[in-house]
């Protein structure tokens, strides 16, 4: 009886030690994964910054004008007689349907037109 109790206690302690060690190792692995993801995020953020820079450089008026000159395209403002002015039609402002808690549990779906 005493021996079996002692063995049980040892088994329990060993299990706890294994679980604890496993948790610690998992934690370290997870932290390494987080570190890698953070690194990835930083790289992607920087790539985004670089692309933003390239886009703004390419879409700057001087770049566009240079491209037009190279392609020998001449853009001119239209004369007044060449402009047809369209009356601005007032579009009713679509208020998005307010969402409530009941929408979350409701099974009905409300179709909403996508604004053009």
């Amino acid at each position, binding site marked *: 009886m005493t021996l079996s109790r002692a063995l049980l206690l040892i088994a329990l302690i060993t299990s706890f030690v294994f679980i604890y060690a496993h948790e610690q190792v998992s934690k370290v692995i997870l932290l390494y994964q987080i570190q890698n993801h953070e690194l990835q995020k930083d790289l992607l953020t920087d790539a985004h*910054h670089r692309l933003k820079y390239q886009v*703004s450089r390419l879409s*700057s008026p001087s770049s566009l004008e240079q491209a037009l000159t190279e392609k020998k395209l001449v853009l001119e403002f239209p004369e007044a007689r060449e402009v047809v002015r369209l009356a601005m039609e007032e579009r009713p402002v679509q208020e998005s349907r307010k969402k409530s808690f009941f929408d979350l549990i409701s099974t009905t779906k409300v179709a909403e037109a996508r604004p053009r």
Partner: protein
Amino acid sequence: MFQRPHRDSLWFFFVFFFVGYLFLGLRLVDRQIFQHGRFKHLAASQHYPTLPLTAFRGDIFDRQGKPLALTHLADSLFVVSRQISEKDKTSRALSAKLDLSTEYLLERVRRNKAFVWVKRKLPESQTGEIRRLGLKGVDFRKEPKRVYPGVTLASHALGFVDMDNRGLEGLEQYYDRLLRGEDGFRQVLRDAKQRALPSSELKYQKPVNGSDLILTLDEVIQHIAERELDEAVRKWQAEGAAIIVMDPHNGEILALANRPSFDLNEPGETLPERRRNRAITDLFEPGSVFKMITAAAALQEGIVNEEDRIYCENGTYRISNHTLHDVHPYGVLSFQEVIQKSSNIGTVKVAQKLGAERLHHYIRTFGFGEKTGIDLPGEVSGTVRHPRQWWGTSIANIPIGQGVSVTALQLACAMGVIANGGSWVKPHLLKEVLSSEGDVIKSYEEEPPRLVLNPSVSKRLQKILVSAIEGGTGKSAKLKGYLAGGKTGTAQKLDANGRYSHSSHIGSFVGFAPYPNPRIVVVVMVDEPRPMYYGGVVAAPVFKKVSEQVLRYLEIPSEENAIEMVSSNDP
């Protein structure tokens, strides 16, 4: 027990070990007690280093949200000398890839330091080439680098930063505290190979990125202004030039440019001379442009009205031992014609009636002789002498823009008074400040405008200035499809002896458009144009080209369109 030689040997060993242990004991006491703090600090710095977390500098956008200044990461090259065994070979290999001499690199590589910068913020192409060499002891560190997509666009207004991203010129300097943000740090535990253990973060302070700025500048208007200014500088072989496009109602600067210009991405490669913001730092005698101030003062004080007849002495007028001339001799002109034809004699006669005190008062109220307070560093106030310091000929010089010195920006603000109905408004470049999350945290707060002229007087002046373009000296500023008002100016520069030069001039034009509801004020200043130098020839065409394009860009209906629209609405 022991014989004497043996006893001596034992004593010798005893003393030897006693002294040895005593020495070790004392060293231990010294290290553990007296130098405890130092060694604790050394161990901590080795095992628990504090790694800086650099905050990103805020971006700068134009009024339409187009980026003018951004920040991205760039690789900076450093060497760890101790890890480099073949120092000569490494230096030669780096020299072939970088634009640096082998001697310079060898000096860096030989430094007995753990970390030595070689070249910071390298272009990507160079980084790739050096990485492929796989040199031992040569590594890169990422650092934020300021980049400007417009390259030279609005270079003087934007300014630039130093290697450590601190603002050195322009808005980058003026709003450095807002843009810079606050660096953070991270204290970690390092293993024997100097690698930070991920689970060991002891202290952490998040870096706060700098705020973004939204400017009043418009990228398209800025481009139009710079393109036309470039053409004028080329055509007239000018030493320099400046242009300002401003909204006269709220003081928003839509464009500000100077020539010569410089590449914002390589500011160190440019002479300081080219980086000077002439529009706010260069003083010049305004010449005939200043007649609009004299005219404004005279109308406001009721000294004259548009139809009053003034005898212009057929081009020669003697005043205090000084003979004043007109470019073309005139007899009797109405006051409106005096300004329209830019008669010096007629203007001086009006100023004599006005008196020095009142003229000086209006010059100051129009903002001359003091800084405008624009949000740019380095602005100068100009020179306007008090009437007590005027001498006999001052009343013949100052009303026609001689003996005073002004900046192009002061002229823009003064024209703004006439264009907006009589109020002086402070010019500014900042519109909004955004947090790094994109929320507006501050908007520019307009200062209450200073009333200078009655609205009716400003309207009358507008008409006079429209006539100066329609039938006066500013004919080449006449816009297609719009009415505009303005005044030409040609001033002689002072030579090395302090005398008026006959070969160096400044041609200028100040105007507003469209009439009767001005939306923009444009100032053009061309420094030492050749062979022609008259403001009406060198600066007025720039005003015309810029104004026409800007008004179309701002979708302000031209006269033709306005007439068409009115007629189409008629029953």
